[in-house]
Each structure stands twice: as C-alpha cells, then as structure tokens.
C-alpha cells in the first residue's frame, strides 16, 4: 500500500567524458516502500543515487522532489530536503571521532554557538545503542574496522530525520548478525509509513526479502521495474546479466590431498590468540566469525603486514614465515586485503598499473608493456571489468574496483592465497567467475584461505571452516552439511563446543 510519492527522477542522464553511464533513467519512490536497485557492476546504480544525493550532477533529466523540480542538487540541498545517503565507499573523516562524524555539517551547539561535544557524544551513544552498533562515540573513526565504519555511515545517515534514505550496498562489509539487524531496522523505519528507502544490493535474497519494488539497470539503461511478488530471482538475474546464473554457486570439489600448509601458534596481543590450523592440498579453507573476531588481524599476521608476537608458517614443512609483505610475496604468499580503497588501490593511478603491480615487481627492472597489456586485457575480459586499462582506478564503480584488486592477486602466481572478503561488492555474474578461478587455483595445487562474512559463500566454497571468536580459532569444522543457523551459533558460541 504505497503512500505519497516522495520522489520522481525523470529521464535522468549522466555522461563521463562522452560516455553515457546513465541513459534516460526514470525512477520513483513512495513513502513506506523499499525500492531496490539492482544491476551488474558498473550498471550505474551508484551514479543514479549520487545524482539524488547531490554528489554528482546529471547531464539531463529532472528531479521532482518535495513539490519542486530540480535540474540538479547539491549535497547540502539534498540533505536539507530530507535525503540521507549511505554511500558504498566509506566517506568519513578518519581524524574525527565517531560522534563528530555523525554530526558533521549539522553539529549540536551550546546556546553560545559553540559545538556541544559532550551532548554530541551522549546523543550519538544513544543512537548507536539503538542501532545496536557497539562502537564508542568518542573513538576516532580511523581506528575502526571497515565493517564498523560502514555502520557509522549508517548512523550518520539515520541521525537526521530524513524522509528518503538511500543505502548503497550497506551490508557488503557487514557480518550476518549486523546485516540482520539492519534488515530489522529497515523494516521498522518503513513500518512508520513516512519514510521511503532506496536500497542497492548484490545480495538478491536481501532484495527479495525487504524490497517492495525492484528496478533493474543494465549498461546505464533501465530494464524494468517490478513489484514484489510479480517476479522471481532467476528472471531478475537474467535481466541483469543477460544470461542464466544461479544464486548459489555449486563449486566443483577438488580431490583433497595431504596437509601442506601449517599455521602454527600465531598470536598478537589484543587481537589474535594462539591460532593454529592446517590447510590441505586442493582445499579451500574458510575462516568465519563475527565482525571483529580477529579474522583480518590473523590474515595480516600470516602475511607479515603486522608484527606477530609469535607464530610460524610452514609449507610442505618448509618455514615460510614472513616478517613483511615483501618477504611473504617472495615466499609465495598472496593476500587480498579486505579494505580495497585503503589497503589495495592506487586510486589516482590507471587500472592497468593497479592490476600488474605484483607482476611488475617480479618481472625485472624494466617494464614490459606488451606483456602487461596482454595480462590486463585477459583479466578485464574474464571478469567483465567495465573500465579501460588507462582509466584512473578512482573512476571505477565499487565492484569493478574490487575486481581490479582480485585480478592483481590472481595474477601473482603465488602458492598460498589468503582472500579477505574477496567478493565484497561484486555482482552475481562475476562472483561465479571468481569462484571458478579459486576452484581452478585449488585444483592446481594452490592453498587457499578464504575469510568471508557472506555465509552462503563461506559454506558453498569452503571445504573446511575455521571458526574464530574473540581472536581464537575455537574449532575447525567440515563445511559439508552445515546450515547457516548452525554456523552462526558457533560464531556466537552458543552451540555446544
């Protein structure tokens, strides 16, 4: 039962240096509905909502909002008109506290006009509690993990009494529990019947769970808008990708061999406690746990990115413990970091350089352009990266950036791969391609450790799963036949040990 019309985007278009990334897209939103936006990486979803939030100026079309017609918006107009946006990429001020970030541009003030930081911290704490975000309001944002930052973005958007809330892949770095909390929150907000939500996600189950309408974008054009219940996931996938693809990936199993990689007693004060496990030949070893359980910290230790208090790594009995990423890479270890923008991308450098950096490091003092170009072309094609190799990485859509990072490490010819949230933000079609690649790697004798907060992914891709809780690897289970609910119980530590 849709309420008032909150918003009408009419034939909105956007070009970047002559290329149309949005072509006459129309889109509307009513009070009390969740309108989902789906499409492949680079389809133009983020661009569309950035036009609405004022971050991007359209080249044509109208924005009908609050009884008026706008040709374009500025962020401050948009905020004033009651539009709150949670961006896909984290855009917070790392040097300010959580409370300062939440109230940025809209500070609470004392009667004398000074910023009332005490009150900001108090009210922010209340807000965070209400949203079940367990982060202190006075903590500096720079100290938070990506997932925590993502949740702060949420709080920042929600602290204003907004009528239109835009969420661009809000759950991509959240754990299962946080994602479920967010779903509940969305449900609660919508139930009031006043607010409308635009929701972008690559998780179709989420979309079908909370969406009232679903709009599909492809190559910057609108394919269709469906009401909930009039469409099934396979049709939406077909409209997005242009072919059949399954929601669940059924990987080929590889023959599991002897234990090859031995992770032995890794510790780091305050983060990781005495973690040991083995990875066998042909195996994909999954690591699961709640956000903040120390998975990323563990990966950083294995890769030598952070100093460990202790721990050795053996491959076929040979000690390959690394004190630095440089050593790690030399020893045949690769790590795809969780935070693509901070830890991975050279944002102002071309896609090509981003992709081949490891190859260049290996290949000798002179750059071999031909070989590089060939490698880049191969990856662009294989993963369907919507970008030219000479484009700066910052101009890519979030999912395409992730693909670039994946390509970099897949090109690295390592023996041990550590993937930390590998498919974050990647569309369904390309996800399958990445899974296929990982399976191939496993099949060719590489050892793979995969950290993932995406339960279906973790369950379908892993042979065994190490469960982490408070920095400890509490158990290692066989992934076969485990349900999501059972796994979550183990993460939380409710199930019998």
């Amino acid at each position, binding site marked *: 039962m849709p309420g008032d019309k909150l918003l009408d985007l009419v034939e909105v278009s956007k070009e970047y240096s002559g290329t149309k990334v949005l072509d006459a897209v129309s889109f509307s939103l009513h009070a009390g509905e969740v309108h989902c936006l789906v499409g492949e990486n680079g389809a133009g979803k983020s661009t569309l909502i950035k036009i609405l*939030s*004022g*971050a991007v100026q359209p080249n044509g079309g109208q924005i009908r909002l609050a009884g008026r017609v706008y040709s374009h918006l500025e*962020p*401050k107009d*948009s*905020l*004033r008109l009651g539009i709150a*946006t949670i*961006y896909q990429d984290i*855009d*917070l*001020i*790392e*040097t*300010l506290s959580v409370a*300062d970030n939440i109230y*940025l*541009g*809209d*500070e609470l*003030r004392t009667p004398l*006009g*000074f*910023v009332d*930081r005490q009150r900001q911290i108090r009210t922010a704490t209340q807000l965070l509690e209400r949203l079940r975000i*367990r*982060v*202190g309001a006075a*903590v500096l944002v720079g*100290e938070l993990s990506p997932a925590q930052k993502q949740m702060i973005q949420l709080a920042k958007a929600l602290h204003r009494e907004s009528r239109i809330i835009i969420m661009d892949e809000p759950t991509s770095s959240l754990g299962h529990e946080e994602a479920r909390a967010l779903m509940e929150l969305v449900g609660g907000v919508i139930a009031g019947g006043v607010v409308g939500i635009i929701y972008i996600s690559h998780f179709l189950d989420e979309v079908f769970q909370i969406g009232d309408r679903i709009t599909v974008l492809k190559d910057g054009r609108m394919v269709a808008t469906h009401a909930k219940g009039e469409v099934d996931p396979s049709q939406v996938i077909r409209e997005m990708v242009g072919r059949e693809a399954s929601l669940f990936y059924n990987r080929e199993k590889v023959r599991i061999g002897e234990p090859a990689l031995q992770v032995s007693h890794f510790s780091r004060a*305050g*983060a990781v406690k005495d973690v040991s496990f083995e990875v066998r030949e042909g195996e994909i070893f999954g690591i699961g746990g709640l956000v*903040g359980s120390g998975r990323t910290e563990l990966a950083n230790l294995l890769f030598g*990115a952070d*100093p460990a208090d202790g721990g050795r790594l053996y491959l076929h009995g040979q000690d390959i413990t690394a004190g*630095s990423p440089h050593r790690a890479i030399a020893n045949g270890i690769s790590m795809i970091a969780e935070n693509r923008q901070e830890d991975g991308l050279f944002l102002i450098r071309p896609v090509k350089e981003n992709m081949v950096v490891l190859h260049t490091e290996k290949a000798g003092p002179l750059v071999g352009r031909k070989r590089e170009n060939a490698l880049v072309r191969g990856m662009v094609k294989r993963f369907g990266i919507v970008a030219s190799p000479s484009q700066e990485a910052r101009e890519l859509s979030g999912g395409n950036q992730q693909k670039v990072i994946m390509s970099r490490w897949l090109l690295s010819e390592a023996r041990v791969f550590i993937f930390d949230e590998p498919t974050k933000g990647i569309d369904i079609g390309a996800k399958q391609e990445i899974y296929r690649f990982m399976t191939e790697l496993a099949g060719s004798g590489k050892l793979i450790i995969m950290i993932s907060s995406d339960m279906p992914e973790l369950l379908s891709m892993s042979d065994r799963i190490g469960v982490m809780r408070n*920095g400890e690897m509490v158990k290692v289970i066989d992934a076969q036949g485990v349900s999501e609910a059972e796994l979550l119980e183990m993460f939380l530590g409710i199930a019998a040990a």
Partner: protein
Amino acid sequence: MDTQSGRAKKAGSALGRLFGRQSFFLVAIILILAIAAGIINPKFFVLRNLLNILEQISVLGLVAAGATILIISGNFDISVGAMIGLSACVMAMLLKTGMNELLAALIGILVCVACSLLNGFLSIRLGAPSFIISLATIGVFHGAALAATEGVIQTIYEQFGAISNTNLFNVFPLMFVISILGFVFVHVILNNTRLGRRVFAIGANRKAAFLSGIGVKQNTLVFFALSGLLAGVATVVLLSRLGAALPTTGAGLELKAIGAVVIGGVPITGGTGNALGTFLGVLLIGVISNMLNLSRVNPYYQEIAYGALVVLSVAVSYLRINAGRKY
C-alpha cells in the same frame, strides 16, 4: 569491543592524555634543551631571558597559529612573509603621513586579510593547489611593497611603540600575551566551533566533507581570512617591535611557521593537529635560537647547530610515535 578500549587505555597515560603524545615529547625536549642551555650558560634561566624568548617568539607564534588552521585544512600559504612585508610597509608609510595608529594598524591587518583571501580565492577558483598560487603571489606582494617603497626602509622612530613597550603586570610582554591570545583563539576555533570541525573535515577528506553538506570552497576562504587576520596582527606586533619596515620584513617567517606547525604534529597533508602542538613547535624554535645566541658557538657553526638541534627534536618527538612503523 574490549580490545579497542584496551588499546585506547594503553595509548595514553594521564600526562599523555593531557598533551597528546607528540606534545608530551615536545615538552620533554624543550625541557631537556632548556636544562642543557642552563648548564652551558646559567643566564639562560634568568627571568629576563625567559621573557626575551617569549617576546622573540610572539610574531612567529601568531603567524604559526594562523598557519595551523590552513595546514590542517590541507592548504598552504607560503606568501605570508611577503604579505607581512607589504602590510608592514603600508602601515609604516601611513604612520609617516601622520595617520592615527589604530587606524593604520587596522588597515595593515586588512591588507593581510585581503592578500590571504586573494590566495584562497585564486586557489579555489582555479582549482590549483594553494601552494603554487601563494608561491606566485609572493612576487605580487613583494613587488607591490617594493613599488610602494622603492626599496627604501620606512622608519617610524618613536611611533607605534605601545605594544612592544608594554608589559602586563610589569612582567609579561604584551606582545607575548597577544600571541597567546592568538593561540587560544585558534584553539577554540579548532576545538569548539563548527568552523573547526570543518577545518579537520576538509583537511582529512574534502570529498566526505562536501558530501556532508559542507561548503568546501566558502569555508576554505574563511580559513584563509583567518590566517590573514593572524598574519595581520603579527605584522602590527612586528612593526611595533622594529619601528621600521622593509619589503623584506617578515621574509622567511612562512617557512619557519610551517616548520613549527609540522614539528607540532600536523602532517603536511593536513587533517589533524592542534594549536598546542604548534605553540610548542614555536617555543622549541625560540629556545634553540636563544640558547645558541647565548652559547657563543662559533658563528659559522651556529646554523649547523640550529639545524642539528631541530632534527634532534623532530627525532625525539616522532621516533617514539612511529616506532615500529613498517612503511
């Protein structure tokens, strides 16, 4: 969650919290240098000498306080020395025509604000880094001062001495009090006002600031105006101290100020920092200069000693903080 608060706890002792870590080490270095200076020459600790130091750092202090805002916000103004020269010459010339001192001071301050705004405006309007714009406007300001004075020193003799002659409670040089007020002003702006939040936001992440509805361009202009205002006050103090102005008056102050700000813990890319750090940076520079002057080091070696002491200070204050940094 508890990992975090644990980390936070370890980060700071009571003193550390009071000063922030960098500032804590700066205080320590200043004390060590002061004690060394006192051992070399006991006169260092004579009240009169300590007051001299305060007097000598007051002009640099005002300039550096303004630079703190700019640098945190991700901007640079390296024409400050030249604009001080221009403003000092204008003021001196006006005073020589017999203009009222207050009015002349006001005009001098306005000259600095206008020059600073010009830098800000050009940088914003052209989308060019303020560093390169202000590098170019050095020539404009210095040239204007030259054209106005034809390079001739503008001496005002007994006029305009009120600021430099006055000591509060018969002890504290008024100049230093003004300088401290400048720091307090900057401190309050940075910590207690919306404008201050914007300084950090724009300096740390322009795009995020913009997306939060902050008018990046307008606010940047305000930062330049503030820096100009403090440079203007610095000029008034300087002119009062010197009693004469040349186009080169103030030359080099901008680099010293930037140095003090960076020693005080602001990264050159901006985004974080505080007024106290800058104050300590300025004080450190003042103590080093003074102790060298008192020390009778061979004049040819004084500059070496100065540079080496600054490096040493930076070493102590950064080394502890970045111990174990891998990249």
